[in-house]
């Protein structure tokens, strides 16, 4: 299986899962979504009728009650046809699935709007999405750097004090809910030591000076970021350590050492290069897994990302947003898995030249 076929397989996989999940979600929520849609259409038709009557009056005609009713029926029929409500349930589900797949989630059910006043669910979600990405990618990069560095140090002196301490810490952090840690950190750093704000992304009102604005942003970013890194770096370090320890016993390392290569070069040049494919998959997978924890933590920190939106939508009973969020987060998750595969393929020459390997 060559690199191209390999990626092709993954892409097909991606599409299949996306369709399955969307289809299932739409089927589960068909009744509820239809009810919501009908309510929204009724609202829209009321608006249309009022506009039409006003238009007629401006042109000197006064429509009778029958005419108004006929117009209302007409509009209802048009909207029902447009949203597929006149079709049987299974077709409706397919229509909706097709809409969701193209990021058309409809309007929010609760009064939730963007600051420009839009009720479009996709617009709302894409307003929150960048904040999740900022928090999450920054956290992942910092975790990666700290984790790999510590892991190498641990492997160098396996069984030493640092090794034992971090191994224990990794075990504890494996069962540490990130969002709960966030709550504790708010107690400690926001209320106890008063060094970081308890939540949000900006002071209200935000400072006008652009430099101060960014500093204010970083100050708000700090605590969620510290939480994310604190909970994940132990696992990274431990994984790196195990992989490096396994490689250190291999012949090519012995050979490199035997020819008098400096230890630093052996470690960073040879060992790290050799373990990089497995390291990339194992660690990135763990980071992608921690995406869910990070999203729940946003609710704790009032960080206006997708997790916070989940919380708001659930509290406001807004089904349209929940479905949209499910789709977008699934999409991102699958994208991340694809990216892992790409990186893995690039790092592992065996895949590029087409030797079958199992991940």
């Amino acid at each position: 299986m060559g690199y191209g076929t390999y990626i092709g397989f993954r892409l097909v996989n991606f599409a299949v899962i996306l369709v399955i999940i969307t289809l299932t979600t739409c089927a589960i929520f068909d009744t509820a979504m239809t009810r919501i849609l009908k309510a929204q259409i009724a609202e829209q038709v009321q608006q249309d009728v009022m506009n039409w009557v006003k238009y007629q009056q401006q042109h000197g005609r006064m429509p009778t009650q029958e005419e108004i009713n006929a117009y209302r029926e007409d509009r209802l029929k048009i909207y029902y046809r447009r949203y597929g409500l006149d079709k049987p349930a299974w077709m409706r589900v397919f229509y909706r699935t097709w809409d969701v797949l193209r990021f058309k989630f409809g309007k929010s059910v609760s009064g939730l709007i963007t600051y420009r006043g839009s009720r479009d669910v996709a617009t709302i979600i894409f307003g929150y999405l960048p904040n999740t990405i900022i928090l999450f990618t920054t956290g992942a990069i910092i975790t990666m750097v700290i984790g790999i560095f510590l892991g190498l140090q641990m492997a160098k002196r396996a069984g030493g004090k640092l090794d034992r301490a971090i191994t224990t810490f990794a075990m504890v952090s494996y069962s540490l809910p990130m969002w709960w840690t966030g709550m504790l950190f708010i107690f400690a750093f926001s209320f106890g030591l008063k060094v970081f704000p308890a939540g949000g992304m900006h002071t209200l009102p935000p400072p006008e000076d652009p430099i101060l604005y960014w500093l204010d942003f970083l100050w708000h970013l700090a605590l969620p970021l510290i939480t994310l890194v604190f909970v994940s770096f132990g696992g990274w370090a431990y994984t790196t350590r195990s992989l490096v320890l396994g490689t250190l016993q291999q012949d090519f390392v012995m050979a490199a050492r035997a020819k008098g290569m400096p230890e630093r070069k052996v470690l960073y040049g040879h060992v790290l290069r050799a373990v990089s494919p497995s390291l990339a998959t194992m660690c990135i997978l763990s980071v992608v897994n921690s995406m869910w924890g990070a999203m729940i933590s946003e609710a704790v920190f009032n960080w206006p990302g997708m997790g916070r939106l989940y919380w708001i939508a659930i509290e406001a009973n807004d089904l349209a947003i929940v479905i949209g969020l499910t789709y977008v987060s699934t999409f991102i998750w699958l994208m991340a898995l694809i990216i892992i595969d790409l990186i893995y393929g690039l790092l592992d020459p065996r895949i590029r030249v087409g030797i079958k390997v199992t991940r």
Partner: protein
Amino acid sequence: MGMGKASEWLQGLKEFWGEYRRYKSGIMGLVLLILLAGMALGAPLIAPKETYENWYNPAYWTDYPQEVPPVWVSYLSGVKKAPHVVMEKGPGDATVLPSAGNTTYVVEFTYSFRYDEPPNDILLRVMGRASEEEKAYVSIKVRRPDGQEIVLLPGYETAFPEIYKGMSSKHFKVGKRSDIGTRIVKWAEKFDTPENVVTASIRPPLGGWVIRILFSKAEEGILVGDAELLKGDYVFTITVVVPKGGELWGTMMIFYGTAYGLLGTDSYGRDLLAGIVWGARLALLIGIMTSLISTIVGVLYGVVSAYLGGLVDEGMMRIYEIVSSIPLLPVLLILSWQFGVTIWNLAFIMALFWWTGPVRTVRSMALQIKEETYVEAARAIGVGTRRMIMKYIANQILPYAFAIMALGVPGAILTEAGVSFLLGGRGVREPTWGKILHDAHKAAATMKGLWWWVLAPGLMICITGLTFVLIGNALDRILNPMLRR
């Protein structure tokens, strides 16, 4: 033959234990597991079952103080907090005064106040039945240690119109009744300066500051909380006048503590200790159930896929890949949102996606075992496929499955907690630790500094997870054939 097999099995167990006890962390995990199991099984002894059943019934928790820390906080801070005191008296404890037609009961409650904080509130409950024609009346007065007497309720308040635990009753909360508050403030005015009287007259006579006046020395500053607390015995005299044909069943006074129990209470007055111990049951149940089902399915799947090989293997691995890349959290959110699951449902749904965990490892193990000579020999003598898979291959992997199972538990508990935290009332029906944390976050516990509400449930999630990580790691080292040297 049965005997021989049993003793062989026992021998194996003994050997295993001999190895297991060498792992200090494994022993620690085992100790923690025993403690947790004790907590889960002993939950009804620590907190009655009705606390668990009434977790979402606010009426049940009215007799508990709200948002107060655990009692042991007193020892840390040196401030003696008022404990929660409940006093009950039956009609036999009352003095009956003779009067024309009616019966007058006089009940005395003595509250010895020796703390650094006044109680949060005072509640009086009278239970009984008035006659059909006439009402019953209740009056309350208190005599303080300094001999001062304050009438809290003069005698024209009717008793018993409502139902409490199946009886007719009525309760009065001193801090919630502005008329009682006004009487206390009026009484205190004669001890304080005119400025303080004005200050106090602006405040609504409700809540803690009124209670504080009741328990302060009659001196300057009593109205603004500057007076010292007056320690000693406070005697509350309750007089209930019951008409002919009516009955008095009992009276009850509650002095709401400023601390409660081992773990404090939340903003509904719920005893967090009850939530924690009953939550241990739920957490263990969901963790072990999910992990057990998914390990069995996963191991069998891996073995079957490896043994059958060829196209079947290829197909099974494709299905495995699809299921393993389904994101669990959003799917769980959607499903429990729509169907309002119990933890049993949730465990089952999680297992539906979780079985993929051990498949790869198990498959590669099974591939190795498949090449062993004894498998070849078994095949040569015509052992059937099912028997081959169950007896010859899966059996070999079984010990290692225990390690996989233990290591799968924390993830299940963490996921349940995360889903419950986000969904709250829309998630699982039972009060799990995740749901307690949801309530805490919703009530802004972090902003209010109610640390006891947040600390205990999260710590329990963490400890439960750690327990299984410790056990799982030890099992993995002993039983994983790949780690064996």
